[in-house]
């Protein structure tokens, strides 16, 4: 976190909160999400709000944890009764996952005080955004229409006034720069190569990270949670994003070859091998190239979808935490292994990483013509 964050006066922070979130039109103007439509003076129509959901451009093709038909069932039940009971009825196996407030537990280590503005990219069915919207102004962006509609219903039924839901393709939407104090990417970066097929998946990921960096306030942070390409779960044969085990371990060309004979997993666009994950060093290089600086890094012992007990990849902090955690079990075993270099071990074999990132150098912010005239 840069020093400017701490120096931001409450008045400055409030001023930023009061200005509505804005999109950036292709003509360069900023269009605030204020009324129910987004008409630019240049004549372009960026989208509109309907039933509490901003629809910006074409949604992404359907994909998700559940089949499209069941998702449609869920939505129709949600419209008649409370989303919680609907989720329990239609998706009993996912209800816990959708309802668990601990999915947002990483917020405890994210250096942003309550009241700041967050953007969650790939908000899915909203477990994280809905929880964070209790204390923060949250913009939840989801590409799949059905999931975004579910999230909008959830926000409306729970009276979450600080949650704005946007249905838009992440690859196409353009926010005005420097307006988010925090950007959440929980299990998102690895999928970026499916929607942006120009060049290598790594190039797509870089473009994605650079755009997010541009949307970040000068003192903002990005929370990035993603799998380790060579983590222990992968070595044990857990399913990679291709739907097959072990593909992340292969050279990329071999993974592509292996996937050529395999039906797309989770998304019709999941063809070839474009869901790249990396080692710790690989992420460091990728993030450096995107001009992002790693401020904190963690291993998620229970996976990034349950970010409790995050293990800091910092020698003293990790040693201290492990000493406290070891109390409950395996004390004698633990004492014998005290001399191990734990940070190295967790970097190499940890299953999921969570990073807190800041912009490595001030982003080049282009002054925009104001879009205020539209509202007059």
């Amino acid at each position, binding site marked *: 976190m840069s020093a400017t964050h701490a120096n931001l006066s409450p008045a400055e922070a409030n001023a930023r909160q009061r200005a509505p979130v804005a999109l950036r039109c292709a003509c360069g103007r900023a269009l605030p999400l204020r009324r129910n439509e987004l008409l630019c003076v240049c004549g372009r129509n960026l989208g509109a709000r309907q039933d509490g959901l901003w629809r910006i451009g074409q949604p992404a093709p359907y994909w998700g944890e559940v089949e499209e038909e069941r998702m449609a069932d869920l939505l129709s039940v949600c419209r008649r009764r409370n989303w919680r009971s609907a989720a329990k009825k239609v998706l009993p196996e996912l209800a816990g996952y959708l309802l668990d407030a601990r999915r947002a537990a990483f917020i405890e280590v994210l250096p942003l005080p309550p009241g700041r503005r967050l953007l969650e990219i790939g908000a899915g069915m909203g477990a994280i955004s809905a929880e964070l919207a209790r204390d923060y102004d949250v913009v939840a962006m989801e590409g799949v229409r059905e999931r975004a509609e579910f999230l909008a219903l959830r926000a409306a039924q729970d009276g979450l006034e600080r949650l704005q839901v946007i249905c838009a393709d992440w690859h196409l939407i353009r926010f005005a720069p420097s307006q988010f104090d925090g950007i959440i990417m929980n299990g998102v970066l690895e999928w970026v190569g499916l929607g942006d097929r120009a060049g290598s998946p790594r190039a797509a990921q870089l473009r994605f990270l650079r755009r997010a960096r541009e949307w970040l306030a000068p003192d903002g942070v990005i929370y990035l949670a993603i799998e380790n390409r060579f983590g222990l779960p992968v070595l044990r044969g857990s399913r990679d994003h291709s739907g097959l085990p072990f593909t992340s371990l292969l050279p990329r060309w071999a993974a592509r070859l292996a996937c050529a004979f395999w039906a797309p997993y989770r998304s019709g666009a999941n063809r070839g091998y474009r869901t790249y994950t990396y080692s710790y060093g690989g992420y460091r290089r990728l993030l450096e190239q995107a001009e992002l600086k790693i401020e904190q890094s963690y291993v998620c012992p229970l996976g990034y979808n349950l970010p409790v007990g995050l293990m800091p990849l910092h020698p003293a902090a990790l040693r201290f935490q492990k*000493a406290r955690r070891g109390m409950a079990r395996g004390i004698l075993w633990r004492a014998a292994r005290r001399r191990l270099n734990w940070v190295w071990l967790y970097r190499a074999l940890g299953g999921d990483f969570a990073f807190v990132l800041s912009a490595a150098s001030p982003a080049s912010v282009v002054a925009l013509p104001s879009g205020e005239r539209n509202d007059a």
Partner: protein
Amino acid sequence: MHELVWRLWSRETGKKALAPLPADPGQVTLACFGAGGRDPVWIAKIARDAAGRQRLRQERAALAQLAPWRTQLLAPGELDWQETEADACLIESGLGGRLRYWRTRRDGLRGHGGELAESVVAWIIKFQSLVAPPRAVSVRELAAEYAAALRSSPGKWPPPDWADALEDASAGSEPRPAAPIHGDLWFGNCLWREGLSGITDWCGFDAGSPLDDLLSFLIKCPARPRERHSLFRAYFFEDCALMRQTRAWAARLAPPPAWRLCFYLFLARRLRWEAGLANQPRSEQERADARAEWTPTLAWLRERRFPAPWS
């Protein structure tokens, strides 16, 4: 991030790290490490439910009372505090050192384990001589208080005759004032570096049995759950080197006629806590675990009509 934590975190410069630590349900504990330091600079505790906030208030009151003797008693100091309608946050100074473990054997705590226990006993004596208990009560009044709490327990656990046993021990004892107690002294709250270097987690600070901290330290020693019952007997009731050793420590804290009441007072407090009747709510699972752990020991004591320890 909690606003208060964020303010302190923003002040740290250089390569810093935050470690979430295991905490009670409803509570978040974070340790902050600065550039190059091997000890936490500060520890933040955040509680959002009513019981957790109450515990933080208690801990804060304890730190305030201990402040004049903070260095002698190796306690943390309060760095900041904030309570709102939604939560409470206490920031304490970090303490250096690490946890240490040992093996308890019937032939006594020897070498390393013995040194640790000796240091803890010396610390308890210093603590009891420096600090006044936060409320002026006698051990007999405490016995009545704990007995009432045990009787109010829903369900049949802790067993109701425990309150009777406690009152029986109380009736035969001399009136004496209660001692200050840390309230949760066990190896997980003791830090070591060239000797005892820190005592953490002060939310249980209260008036109590003069033997409370010693017995708590002995009973919650590193041991497998299966060994606990036999260790309990070896500490207090069997003629072995371990029993003679703990008796000598007890003699430094309370005179022999007071031992029986002090002992059952400690057990009653422990049971009251583990049954969720005081200080901290317990889940069904935790209550069931505590019950499974304590049942053989309690049955063994009942069969012998609640004997005095070290006799």
